[in-house]
């Protein structure tokens, strides 16, 4: 057993995140005041001792590229191994799909040479857009103990009908994989998989040979009988950020100390990108309650039930409630903002009023002045 290699899929998908994905893929959406969504999965891997991570890049990857940088923030800036960017679809002749991401197996097929050079025995595959703090070393240990070919992480918390669901037998083996079912039942797939490098290579070859693009269709369903696919059940916090509604709810949940304690447990720290912002400053006239606040904020107005990213300014007399304000947002004097999500560097004008609703928060696109 020579450890585990990480592969993270970062790709453009049909999005319910509106303006937040105008300029980025799901994985690089800002979350929890000081992070991008991908930070969680990267940290999970690093905390499980993973030293080599390949990130399959697709679509609007500039923001992801800028965020990952050299990988230094996750101790993945290495001479050998470390972080590798894999622009799987960069080769024009492989763009049969006209730029669409058709499935993980196709993407892996495009970087087969990289897979062949993996130095570890096992590989963990995961999406970049799931917020979770999961002990992947435990998943690997149980994978080895179960003798399974493939272990898939899933949860008993049901999602919507578009999700993938597993049916398990009494030993925890996955006996059926379904999707688009009217009433969700069984265990919801969290798109985290562990298998050996060798099996991965075999599966990639087999899928390429059979025109299978997706992991669900080409492996879980097609080969479900031949492979021993085992479930690893995680009932802790796991948030997929795929709609604005989910983004808002999942963000606001973080004001609950228990959920925050679970996601930011000290034994498995979440590494974000380092920054040079100074401490935040709260003015004597400022009133800041029930709020998560990153560095470099300047709070002179009232802030309540909100999430403030780095460098947010709330000017005197302004009032912010139920908002998620991304990096560099400025709320000018006497503005009133309720249930609003602002992307980076948004300015809310003096005396302005912006009101969304908890169930339909307003989203303000990056750099806008409203």
């Amino acid at each position, binding site marked *: 057993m020579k450890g585990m290699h990480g592969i993270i899929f970062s790709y453009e998908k049909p999005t319910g995140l509106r303006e937040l994905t105008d300029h980025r893929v799901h994985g690089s959406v800002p979350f*929890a005041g000081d992070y991008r969504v991908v930070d969680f999965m990267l940290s999970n891997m690093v905390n499980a001792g993973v030293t080599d991570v390949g990130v399959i890049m697709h679509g609007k990857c500039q923001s992801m590229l800028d965020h990952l940088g050299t990988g230094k923030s996750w101790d993945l800036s290495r001479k050998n191994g470390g972080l590798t960017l894999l622009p799987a679809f960069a080769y024009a002749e492989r763009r049969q799909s006209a730029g669409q991401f058709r499935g993980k197996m196709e993407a892996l097929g495009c970087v087969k040479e990289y897979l062949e050079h993996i130095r570890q025995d096992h590989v963990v595959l995961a999406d970049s857009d799931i917020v979770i703090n999961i002990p992947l070393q435990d998943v690997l240990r149980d994978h080895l103990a179960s003798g399974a070919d493939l272990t898939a992480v899933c949860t008993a918390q049901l999602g919507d009908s578009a999700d993938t669901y597993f049916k398990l037998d009494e030993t925890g083996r996955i006996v059926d994989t379904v999707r688009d079912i009217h009433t969700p039942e069984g265990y919801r797939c969290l798109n985290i998989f562990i298998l050996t490098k060798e099996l991965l290579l075999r599966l990639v070859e087999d899928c390429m040979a059979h025109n299978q693009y997706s992991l669900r269709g080409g492996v879980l369903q097609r080969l479900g009988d031949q492979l021993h696919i085992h479930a690893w059940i995680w009932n802790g916090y796991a948030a997929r950020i795929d709609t604005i509604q989910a983004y808002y709810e999942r963000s606001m949940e973080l004001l609950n100390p228990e959920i925050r304690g679970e996601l930011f447990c000290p034994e498995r720290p979440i590494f974000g990108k*380092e920054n*040079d912002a*100074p*401490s935040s400053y*709260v003015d004597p006239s400022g009133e800041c*309650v029930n709020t*998560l*606040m990153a560095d470099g904020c300047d709070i002179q107005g009232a802030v309540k039930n909100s999430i403030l990213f780095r460098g947010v300014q709330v000017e005197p007399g302004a009032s912010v409630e139920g908002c998620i304000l991304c990096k560099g947002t400025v709320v000018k004097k006497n503005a009133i903002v309720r249930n609003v999500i602002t992307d980076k560097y948004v300015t809310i004008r003096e005396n302005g009023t912006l009101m969304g609703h908890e169930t339909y928060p307003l989203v303000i696109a990056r750099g806008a002045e409203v």
Partner: protein
Amino acid sequence: MKKECVAMLLAGGQGSRLYVLTGDMAKPAVPFGGKFRIIDFPLSNCTNSGIDTVGVLTQYRPLELNSYIGNGQPWELDRMDGGVHILPPYQSATGATWFKGTANAIYQNIGFVDLYDPDYVAVLSGDHIYKMDYSDMLRRHKEAGAACTISVMEVPWSEASRFGIMNVDGEDNITEFAEKPKEPKSNLASMGIYIFTWQKLRQYLIEDEADPDSANDFGKNIIPKMLDAGERMVAYRFEGYWKDVGTLDSLWDANMDMLLPGSGLNLLDKSWPIYGRTPVCPPTFVGPKADVGNSAVAKGCTINGEVKNSVLSTETSVGKGAAVTYSVVMPGAVIEDGAQVSYAIIGEKCRIGRGAVVGGPPEAAADPEQWGITVLGPHTVVKPGEKVAPKTMLDKHHNEEVEA
């Protein structure tokens, strides 16, 4: 390999006057302003001024400083050529030699400086809080064709006798240097920041070292000798915030200044960023019943009580009903529910038990002369309900009182 200007940062002193806070730690590693450490200021000044080669002279426990500075990456001083280097004393063929004075520290590292063959050397102090563009001072030095340029600032005439005072002519050439003069002729105080033409300094260092009567100190020996020899020495007038935080009171003052609009020390100012190494921790949570005002708060805190006119460093927590006022709380300290902390410096990872009272306001002191800030060394535990009077210092290991 050649550099125009190399900076030598005197971080040598164990913070004897800060002893209760530093213990074995070098003074420049003391936290400041919630997120930073004192040494972040001169290092960031170097980076922002375009100086990419810095020697840090230390002799007390370089370990913390070493691991804090590391490869210099937070300050962009992880360069292939140049970068930041910790320079502890070394044993030469002729035996061990500790740094004697500030000048001796540079003397012992002439070899380091020569590696970069610089035209100029900036000699900086590791325990000043200020934002300064050394490239502007260097321009002044070059334009004046000086052997030495000393950064000065105007102080109130009434306080001038507490400083090293530079007397200058009409063109700000230094004509005389007086250490704490009874009758100051000028109110230009030396800030202890020098730029030297390296070949000049090199020669004076060698001469000074050969002088058995010298204390090998810049202020006491090198500067007066250069003046006597008629070298061209000029003053560089600095305007802006500057404070030597070599004492507990001045450290507390500087933290409070940071909270004061108009003090000149505005950390949110983005034009001259201060860089630092920060621990990995989530954003700060300000609870539903929290009451925060005129305070600086770093990442990773949990605030459920009152925080007024205070600085909270990373990963501190303030419990329900607790109150922190006019205090500096260093990383990882825990103020439990109902505890009262005022006019205090709480060291790293202290724990103030429920309902304990630490420090107190000057108004409440019986004898205002005997009042002072309260300081707890790192890892000090104050038991629930315990009272720690103003001006008390608790030592980190044994929790015994140490007289200030």
